[in-house]
C-alpha cells in the first residue's frame, strides 16, 4: 500500500487558510464596530464641548452685562440731575459724588464740561474716585493741562455721536494700577446741545479672575478681547492689557491663520472655529458682548475633548490586537498539533504496514498449504495459527524426511514483535537441527542450548517436538514445558508427557524422550494454551473440558480443525482475542502389516474400562479366528492383569493410563501391558496355594495366579519408570 501524505498536507493547509479567514473576518467586524462607536462618541463629545463652551460664554456674558447695565444705569439715572446742575456750576461735583456713592461698582465718575460751556471757566471736570484699596472717596479734577481731557476718547466719542460710549479698557495708573473701563454719556442742556460728558469708571479687575477661572476642560482657557483686539483676560497675566492679540500672534508664524482668527473673533459674530497649529488642533468658541464690542472666546484643545475617547480607543485597539493575537496563537497551536497528529498518523500507518509485511513473512515461515503432502495416503494434516496481534509468538512446523514426520508446536512467552522474533529463531533452529537428527530428545536439547546461550531478553519457549515413523506408527517425542497433546482414538486421552522445562531457561539441561505407537486412523492433536485460555466476554475460559468435547470421533484432520475453530469462535463471540491460537492435527493413516502389531488399547485406571477390554478381545478374536475358550482365558488373564494395575498402580484420585498392545507372531500371541504407576512386579508375588481347605483359603490373591496359570510366559520389566508386563500365549 502506498501512502499519500500530500493530500493530507493540502487538507491541513486548506484548514489553515480557513482559520486565517475566520480571524480576518473577526478582526474586520471588531474594527468596524470600534469605528462606528468612535464616530458617534466623537460626535457626542463635540456636541458636549459646544454646549459646555456656549453655556460658559453665556454665563460670562450675563455677568459682564450685569455690571455694564449697572454702570450705564448709574450714569443715566443721574443725567437729569446733571442737566439741572448745569445752571448751578458749583453743584456739578455733587453729581459725580452721588454716582460713586450710590453705585458700589462705580470706582470713579467725572462730569467733564464741553470747553467753553462756562465762559468763566473754559475747562471744568470735577472727578470723584474711590480708592481701589482703601475704599476712600476723594475729590479730584481732571481739568489739568497735562491730562487735557477734551482730547480723550471717552470725551470725544460721545460728543461726536451724541450716544453713550464704552471706552477701550485701560490701566488706571493713578487709581491703583487696575483695569478699568469707562462709560460716558452726553448731558444736554435745555437747548438740546451737549453741555457735558458724564462718566462712570468701573473696575474690570474681577473680570480677569472670572475669565481665568473658567475651566470647562483641564487645558481649556478663555480669552477676552477688547474692541481693538487688546487682551483683557487670559491665563497669561503678563499679556493682559499689555499686548493685543495681533501683537502676540505676530511672533508665532502663520500670520495668515492668526489674522483670520483675529478677524473672526472681532467680527462681532457668534460661532466656533477649529484651528490647526503646530500639529495640535484647538477649537475656539466665541461670542461678542453687546455694547462694549468685546469678544469673549473659549479655547479648548482637541485632546481635551477627545483625549478620553482616544484613550478608550487605544485601549479597545490594544484589546482587539491582543484578542486577535491570541486567536492566531490558538489557530497556529491547533494546526501545529494537527500537523503533528498527521505525522504520527503517517508513522502509525507506516508501522502498521511494516507489521503487515512482518506478519506475511512470519506466516510464510510455517507450512500453510493443506493438505501438505497430497501425494501421500498415509498422512493427513490440518493446522491453523491465529496471532492475537499482527505478529505472534506461536509456531508449528513439520516436514517429512526419511519416511519420518518431524513436527513441533511451540509457544513463545509474551506476544507481539519480540515474541515473533524468538518464534522465527525457534522455527529456524528446529528446521536446522531436525535436518540431521532423528531423536527428538537431541533436537530439543540442542535447541535449548542454542536459545539459552543467546537469551538476553529472558524469553522462553514451550515446545513439543515429535518424530513419527511413517512405516510403523512409532512416535518418539520430547516435551519442553508444552501442554500435552491429545491422542484421538476410539476415545480421547492425553499423551503421557514429561513436563521438562521450557526452552531457553537452563542452558545445559538434558531433555527426556518418550515414545509410543500410534495406529491406523489415530490422530494427534497439538495446540497452544491460546485455545484453552480463550476468553469470552464474561471472562470465562474455553477450558479443557470444552476442548475434549469437540475432539470426539475419528475424522479427517480438516474436519477436526474446522470443528475446533467453530467451537472456539462460537465460545469467544465478540470478545477480543487475548493470545495467539494455534492447533495442529496429525491423522495417521498407514496400515501397518498385521503380522507385526495387531491392536493397541489404551485404558484409564477406572474399573469400568474392563468392559472395553472384553470388546477389544472379542474384536481381536473375531479377526484372528481365535476359539471361544482361548478368548475367554485370554480375557480372564488380561482382565486380572489390568485390574491389578487399575486398583493398585496409581494413588486414589490420580488418573493414569494403561496401554495394551497385542501382537500376533506366527503361533504366538504376545500382549504387552504398560503403565506409569507404582513399580510392581506381579511375577514376584508368591504362588497361591489352591489345595487349601475352605477355612484356610484367603479371599484374594487369585488374580495374578490366574494370569500366570493362563499365559505360557509372563515377564516383567521396569523401563524409564514404566511397568511393562509382557505375556505370551502359544496357540
Amino acid at each position, binding site marked *: 500500500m502506498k501512502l499519500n501524505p500530500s493530500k493530507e498536507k493540502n487538507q491541513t493547509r486548506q484548514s489553515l487558510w480557513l482559520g486565517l479567514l475566520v480571524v480576518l473576518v473577526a478582526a474586520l467586524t471588531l474594527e468596524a464596530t470600534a469605528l462606528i462607536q468612535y464616530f458617534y462618541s466623537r460626535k457626542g463629545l463635540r456636541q458636549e464641548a459646544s454646549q459646555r463652551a456656549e453655556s460658559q460664554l453665556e454665563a460670562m456674558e450675563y455677568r459682564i452685562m450685569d455690571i455694564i447695565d449697572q454702570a450705564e444705569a448709574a450714569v443715566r439715572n443721574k443725567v437729569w440731575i446733571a442737566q439741572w446742575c448745569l445752571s448751578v456750576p458749583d453743584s456739578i461735583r455733587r453729581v459725580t459724588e452721588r454716582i460713586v456713592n450710590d453705585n458700589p461698582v462705580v470706582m470713579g465718575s467725572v462730569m467733564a464740561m464741553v470747553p467753553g460751556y462756562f465762559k468763566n471757566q473754559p475747562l471744568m471736570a470735577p472727578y470723584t474716585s474711590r480708592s481701589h484699596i482703601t475704599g476712600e472717596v476723594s475729590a479730584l479734577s481732571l481739568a489739568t493741562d497735562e491730562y487735557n481731557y477734551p482730547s480723550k476718547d471717552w470725551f470725544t466719542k460721545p460728543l461726536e455721536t451724541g450716544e453713550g460710549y464704552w471706552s477701550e479698557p485701560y490701566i488706571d495708573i493713578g487709581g491703583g494700577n487696575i483695569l478699568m473701563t469707562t462709560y460716558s454719556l452726553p448731558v444736554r442742556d435745555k437747548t438740546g446741545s451737549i453741555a457735558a460728558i458724564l462718566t462712570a469708571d468701573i473696575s474690570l479687575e474681577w473680570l480677569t479672575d472670572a475669565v481665568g477661572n473658567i475651566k470647562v476642560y483641564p487645558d481649556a482657557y478663555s480669552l477676552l478681547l477688547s474692541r481693538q483686539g487688546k487682551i483683557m483676560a487670559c491665563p497669561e497675566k503678563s499679556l493682559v492689557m499689555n499686548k493685543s492679540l495681533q501683537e502676540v500672534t505676530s511672533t508665532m508664524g502663520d500670520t495668515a491663520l492668526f489674522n483670520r482668527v483675529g478677524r473672526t473673533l472681532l467680527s462681532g459674530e457668534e460661532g466656533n472655529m477649529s484651528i490647526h497649529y503646530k500639529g495640535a488642533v484647538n477649537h475656539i468658541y466665541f461670542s461678542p458682548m453687546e455694547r462694549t464690542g468685546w469678544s469673549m472666546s473659549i479655547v479648548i484643545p482637541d485632546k481635551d475633548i477627545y483625549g478620553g475617547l482616544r484613550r478608550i480607543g487605544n485601549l479597545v485597539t490594544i484589546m482587539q490586537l491582543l484578542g486577535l493575537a491570541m486567536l492566531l496563537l490558538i489557530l497556529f497551536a491547533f494546526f501545529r498539533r494537527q500537523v503533528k497528529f498527521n505525522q504520527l498518523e503517517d508513522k502509525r500507518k507506516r508501522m502498521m504496514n511494516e507489521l503487515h509485511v512482518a506478519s506475511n513473512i512470519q506466516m510464510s515461515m510455517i507450512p500453510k498449504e493443506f493438505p501438505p503432502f497430497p501425494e501421500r495416503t498415509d498422512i493427513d494434516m490440518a493446522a491453523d495459527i491465529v496471532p492475537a496481534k499482527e505478529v505472534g509468538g506461536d509456531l508449528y512446523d513439520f516436514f517429512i524426511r526419511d519416511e519420518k514426520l518431524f513436527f513441533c508446536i511451540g509457544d513463545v512467552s509474551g506476544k507481539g514483535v519480540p515474541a515473533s522474533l524468538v518464534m522465527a529463531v525457534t522455527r529456524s533452529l528446529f528446521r536446522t537441527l531436525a535436518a540431521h537428527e532423528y531423536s527428538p530428545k537431541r533436537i530439543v536439547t540442542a535447541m535449548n542450548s542454542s536459545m539459552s546461550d543467546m537469551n538476553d531478553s529472558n524469553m522462553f519457549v514451550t515446545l513439543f517436538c515429535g518424530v513419527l515413523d511413517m512405516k510403523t506408527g512409532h512416535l518418539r517425542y520430547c516435551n519442553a514445558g508444552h501442554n500435552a497433546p491429545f491422542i484421538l482414538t476410539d476415545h480421547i486421552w492425553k499423551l503421557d508427557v514429561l513436563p521438562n522445562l521450557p526452552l531457553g531457561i537452563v542452558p545445559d539441561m538434558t531433555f527426556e524422550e518418550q515414545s509410543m505407537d500410534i495406529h491406523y486412523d489415530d490422530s494427534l492433536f497439538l495446540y497452544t494454551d491460546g485455545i484453552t485460555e480463550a476468553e469470552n466476554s464474561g471472562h470465562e475460559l474455553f477450558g479443557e473440558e470444552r476442548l475434549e468435547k469437540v475432539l470426539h470421533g475419528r475424522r479427517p484432520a480438516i474436519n477436526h480443525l474446522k470443528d475446533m475453530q467453530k467451537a472456539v469462535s462460537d465460545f469467544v463471540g465478540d470478545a477480543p482475542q487475548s493470545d495467539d491460537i494455534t492447533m495442529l492435527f496429525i491423522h495417521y493413516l498407514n496400515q501397518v502389516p498385521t503380522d507385526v502389531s495387531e491392536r493397541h488399547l489404551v485404558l484409564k485406571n477406572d474399573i*469400568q474400562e*474392563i468392559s472395553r477390554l*472384553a470388546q477389544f478381545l472379542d474384536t481381536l478374536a473375531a479377526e484372528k479366528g481365535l476359539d471361544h475358550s482361548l478368548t475367554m482365558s485370554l480375557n*480372564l488373564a488380561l482382565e486380572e492383569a489390568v*485390574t491389578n494395575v487399575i486398583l493398585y498402580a496409581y494413588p486414589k484420585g490420580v488418573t493414569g493410563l494403561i496401554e495394551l498392545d497385542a501382537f500376533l507372531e506366527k503361533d504366538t500371541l504376545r500382549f504387552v501391558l504398560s503403565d506409569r504407576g507404582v513399580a510392581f512386579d506381579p511375577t514376584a508375588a508368591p504362588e497361591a496355594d*489352591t*489345595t487349601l481347605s*475352605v477355612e484356610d483359603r484367603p479371599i484374594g490373591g487369585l488374580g495374578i495366579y*490366574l494370569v500366570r496359570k493362563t499365559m505360557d510366559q509372563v515377564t516383567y520389566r521396569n523401563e524409564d519408570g514404566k511397568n511393562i508386563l509382557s505375556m505370551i500365549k502359544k496357540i
Partner: protein
Amino acid sequence: MEINITQQNNSTTVQLIGRLDTPASLDAAKELEPLQEKANGTIILDCKELTYISSSGLRIFLTLRKAAMNKGGEVIVRSINEDIRNVFMMTGFLNLFKIEN
C-alpha cells in the same frame, strides 16, 4: 449381569446371568451380601447362564462358601459351563464347592 434370587423354604436360589467380570462383581457383591445371613440354609448358585467369571467373581463364591461353613449351611454351584469349570479347576474351587449339573 443379571441376578435373580428366589427363596424356597430353607434354600435360596441365585440365578446368575451374563458375565461376572470385575465391574459386575462389585455390584453383585453388594447384592449378595445379605445372603450371608441365610448361609445356615442351602444356597444354590445357578450358573447355567453365567458365561464368564473373573477372580473377583470367585471371591464372592468363596465368601458365601465361608459363611455357609461357619453357619453350618451349604453352597451348591449348579450347571457351570466348560470354561468356568476350567477356572474352577485351575483355582482348586472344584474341591471347595458341591458342583451340580
